[in-house]
């Protein structure tokens, strides 16, 4: 989804190298032609939600994800947008995975910590999922965020990462999934995850 936010070009480049057809969809018609969607995101929560609203893609996105059941992968803020709301902003999220977005240092028993959580960290799958297939042995991904997805249902947390305590770094429910890190900027581990999304999910 090309709604003026996030590294769509880098994601498309990964798919091009893999030989998996990928288009940058910036119109509802182009979006409706796709069999899977990647919802990228960089920036503050409200800014991202505003850009999505202004893009004219929101209705088509809703129809595909909730109507047709098209698989969607949210990345970074794109993942946080899957929640109902975020402590970072006042706008409503998409609400496709039950939960809210909170600051990492607002977790129970949180110690003082440097925020944002910035750099390469481990991602440990908590259950078998097609998205994380082949990534259970020491996979590392690049993180850059201060907020995290607080899942209402633990089963929706597909993987965990430790930064002064564990948080859900991959979430999934039905056809909707999201990753807090940047797979498009995480070398071969990220390529594997994007390939899994295209081929296996």
């Amino acid at each position: 989804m090309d709604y003026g936010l996030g590294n769509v070009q880098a994601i498309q480049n990964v798919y091009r190298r893999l030989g998996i057809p990928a288009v940058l969809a910036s119109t509802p018609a182009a979006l409706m032609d796709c069999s899977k969607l990647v919802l990228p995101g960089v920036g503050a929560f409200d800014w991202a939600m505003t850009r999505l609203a202004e893009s004219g893609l929101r209705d088509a996105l809703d129809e595909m994800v909730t109507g047709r059941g098209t698989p969607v992968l949210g990345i970074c803020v794109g993942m946080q947008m899957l929640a109902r709301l975020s402590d970072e902003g006042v706008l409503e999220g998409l609400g496709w995975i039950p939960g809210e977005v909170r600051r990492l240092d607002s977790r129970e028993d949180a110690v003082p910590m440097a925020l944002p959580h910035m750099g390469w960290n481990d991602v440990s799958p908590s259950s078998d999922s097609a998205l994380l297939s082949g990534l259970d042995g020491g996979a590392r991904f690049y993180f850059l965020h201060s907020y995290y997805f607080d899942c209402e249902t633990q089963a929706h947390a597909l993987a965990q990462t430790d930064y002064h305590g564990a948080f859900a770094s991959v979430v999934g429910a039905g056809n909707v999934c999201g990753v807090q890190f940047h797979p498009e900027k995480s070398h071969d581990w990220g390529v594997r995850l994007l390939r899994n999304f295209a081929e296996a999910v």
Partner: protein
Amino acid sequence: MLRPRIIPCLLVRNNGLVKTERFSKGKYVGDPINAVRIFNEKEVDEIAVLDIDASAQGREPDYSLIERLAAECRMPLCYGGGVRTVQQFERIVGLGVEKVAISSAAAETPQLITSAAEMVGSQSVVVVLDAKKTRGGYTVWTRNGTMPTHLEVAEAAARAQAMGAGEIVVNSIDQDGVMRGYDLELVGQVRRATTLPMTALGGAGSLNDIGCLFETFGIMGAAAGSLFVFKGIYKAVLINYPSRTERDDLYQRAYSRA
């Protein structure tokens, strides 16, 4: 576990990559896109590209170059140079750049830090402090090291955090390109003034210099220019980066810090 970051820092001038010494000279070392491709193969942790003339010449960032860099990078990219407005932040982040660095503008109009963080999020706002040693401590300089400010480096770091920055890069003008090690006293002053993630730049001449930095300060970023573009005493241009094993050893030195 979160790892420390080892970051090649590339300087751009007239569409080419250069490497400076104490912020002057500027030896041509190659093409930026080509360098990024090589660093992709080496699986670097992160990369920083700074346009060193943009602010000094008062011109706009080169958006077409930034767009090509962002698309090429298979690792996170930090861009700096010539950024003075929130609109520029928005545009550059929109091109797919993870982090945008400001130095001159942060010193001159610190409110920009706050308004940029509100728009693109704190995590994408990096403040670079170009510091020069004075008799009493360290002062921040702007416009590619040509203009002194009255700001002490620790004070500038604390202010950047209070205004909403997401990372501090402290760059030693005195050590730039000299390859004799980081100025640990300077890094320490900034480390004590802020709880933000931070990155040291200026002076790394060997992997051991990076190890010493990690040993002293734990998890942080270690950026270097010369170390990753030159080889040998004659400074032949050869892009290089530590292997995974070498990096794991360096990470251990960060974890070993008591």
